C-alpha cells in the first residue's frame, strides 16, 4: 500500500505516459502523506471488462487512518496529474480511494505500520525494479 490501479482503454496510454503518471502519483502521495516512496505502487490495466462506467479510472487502495479531507484532496491531485499527463477529459475519468487497516498487509515480510508510524527501516526499504509484476487473488469463500 498504497496501490493505485489505473484502468484505461487498451493501448490508450503509452509507456512514456505510464512512467510519468507513476512518478506523479508517487510524488503526490508522498508529498501529501509523508509515506516512503517505495510504498507507492501504480499499475495499469485495460478496461476491457466494462469494470467501470468511465473509460478511465483511478482505483486506489490506501491504509486507513487519514482524515477524509486529506483523502479528498489526494484523489483530486491524482486526477489532476493523470489528466495533465494523458490529456484525458475530466468527464471521462473516474476515481475512488478505498481503505483497509495497515495490519491486514505485509511488505518485505513485515506487517505494515500505521500511517505516520513508518520508522527508518521502512524508509530505507530496497525497491526492486525493472521486471514484471504479477498479482494473485486468493479468495476463501
Amino acid at each position, binding site marked *: *500500500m498504497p*496501490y493505485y490501479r489505473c484502468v484505461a482503454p487498451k493501448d490508450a496510454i503509452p*509507456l512514456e505516459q*505510464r*512512467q510519468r503518471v*507513476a*512518478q506523479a*502519483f*508517487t*510524488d503526490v502521495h508522498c508529498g501529501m502523506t509523508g509515506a516512503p*516512496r*517505495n*510504498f*507507492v*505502487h*501504480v*499499475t*495499469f*490495466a485495460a478496461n476491457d471488462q466494462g469494470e467501470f462506467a468511465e473509460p478511465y479510472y483511478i482505483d486506489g487502495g490506501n491504509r486507513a487512518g487519514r482524515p477524509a479531507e486529506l483523502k479528498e484532496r489526494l484523489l483530486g491531485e491524482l486526477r489532476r496529474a493523470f489528466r495533465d499527463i494523458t490529456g484525458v477529459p475530466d468527464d471521462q475519468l473516474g476515481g475512488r480511494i478505498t481503505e*483497509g487497516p495497515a*495490519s*491486514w*498487509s*505485509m*511488505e*518485505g*515480510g513485515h*506487517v505494515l505500520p500505521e500511517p505516520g508510524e513508518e520508522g527508518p527501516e521502512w524508509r530505507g*526499504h*530496497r*525497491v*526492486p*525494479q*525493472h*521486471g*514484471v*509484476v*504479477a*498479482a*494473485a*487473488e*486468493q*479468495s*476463501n*469463500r
Partner: protein
Amino acid sequence: MAPSLWPALQSRLTDIAADVLGASPDRVEVEFEVIPHGFGFRGGELSTTSLVRGQIPPGCAQEVRVALMRTICDMWCAVTGCSVDELIVSARDRPAPDS
C-alpha cells in the same frame, strides 16, 4: 514469473488456507493476473513486485492473519525464488454480501 509456476502456487495457497484458517480446500479460489513489463511501478520506477491479495472470513484474530501472511510469504519466495522485498501479501476481511 513463469506461468508454469502457477499450479504449484495455487496448490500451496490452497493448502495454506486450509492449514491456517481451517478452510475447506474446495472453497478456496486462486486467480492469477499478470501485469506485463512496463505496466507496474513502485516508487515511480518499473517494478518486479508480486502482490498476493486474499479475502478471508471477517473477524479473524490478528495473530492468525499474520501467520497466514507470513506462511504465504515464505512459500511464495521458496516457489518463485523472489526475494521477500519483492512481495506484498494482504489478507483482507471479506466484505459482507450487501456491502
